[in-house]
C-alpha cells in the first residue's frame, strides 16, 4: 500500500505528570515503529486552554505527532490505545497526504505559470485592508 501521512493530536489531563506523558508517547512510538512506520515529528504543545470544556476540564496538555505509514491498521491500533489510556481526554487523527499532494500540485502550477510570464504587473498593494474588513464584519 501506498504510504500515507497522518497528523495525530491528543490531549491529556492537565494534571498528568510529565513523565507519564513521555511514557505514553514512547509506547505509541514503539507501536508505530514496530510496524515499520515512521514518526516524522513529535511536538509537545504543553498545557493549553481548550475552546470548550471536556470532561469538566478547561485545560489540556496537547501532544502533536506526524506519522508516515503504509498500514491503515496502525491508525486503528493507535486510536484504540488512546481510547483506552486514562490520561487522554481527546484525540484526533487526520489523513493529510492527499492535501499535501494537492498543495504540491498547486505550487508547481504556480511556479510554472510564474516562469512562463515573468512580467510582474504591479504586485498588489491592496492587502492591508483585509484584516480590518473581516474584523468589522464580526
Amino acid at each position, binding site marked *: 500500500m501506498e504510504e500515507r501521512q497522518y497528523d495525530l*493530536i491528543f490531549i491529556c489531563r492537565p494534571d498528568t505528570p510529565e513523565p507519564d506523558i513521555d511514557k505514553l508517547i514512547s509506547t505509541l512510538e514503539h507501536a508505530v515503529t514496530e510496524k515499520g512506520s515512521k514518526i516524522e515529528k513529535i511536538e509537545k504543545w504543553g498545557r493549553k486552554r481548550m*475552546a470548550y470544556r471536556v470532561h469538566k476540564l478547561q485545560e489540556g496538555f496537547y501532544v502533536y505527532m506526524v506519522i508516515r505509514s503504509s498500514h491503515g491498521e496502525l491508525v486503528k491500533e493507535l486510536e484504540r490505545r488512546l481510547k483506552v489510556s486514562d490520561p487522554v481526554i481527546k484525540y484526533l487523527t487526520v489523513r493529510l497526504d492527499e492535501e499535501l499532494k*494537492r498543495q504540491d500540485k*498547486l505550487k508547481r502550477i504556480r511556479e510554472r505559470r510564474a516562469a512562463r510570464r515573468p512580467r510582474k504587473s504591479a504586485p498588489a498593494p*491592496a*492587502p492591508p485592508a483585509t484584516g480590518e474588513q*473581516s474584523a468589522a464584519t464580526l
Partner: protein
Amino acid sequence: MAEENVPQQQPAPPPAGARPHSKPSGPVRRGKRSFVRKKKVCRFCVDKADFIDYKKADILAPFLQERGKILPRRMTGTCARHQRWLTVAIKRAQNIALLPFAAGR
C-alpha cells in the same frame, strides 16, 4: 361580475417590485463621487495559500462569529475554493478543542 373583474385585473400588470433598469448615469451618481463599495479580497488568495492549516487556530478564529458560527463568504470575501478548505479546517480544529463549536456561556 365580469365588469367587476376587469378593473381589478387592470392595476395588476405593473408588478410591485418593478424597478426601472439601472441607467449608467443616474441622477444620484455624479461622476467621480459615485459610491463605490470597497472590494473584499480573499485573504488566502492574497497570501497565495495552497493549504489552510487546521492547527493554527489564530488564523481561523477571525472567520468565526462571536458565538462560534462560521462566517459566510459574503461577509469575509473569501473565494469559493478557500472557503471550502476553510470550513474543513475549522471543523477539524473544533474537534480537537482548538476552536469552539458554540462559544459563550
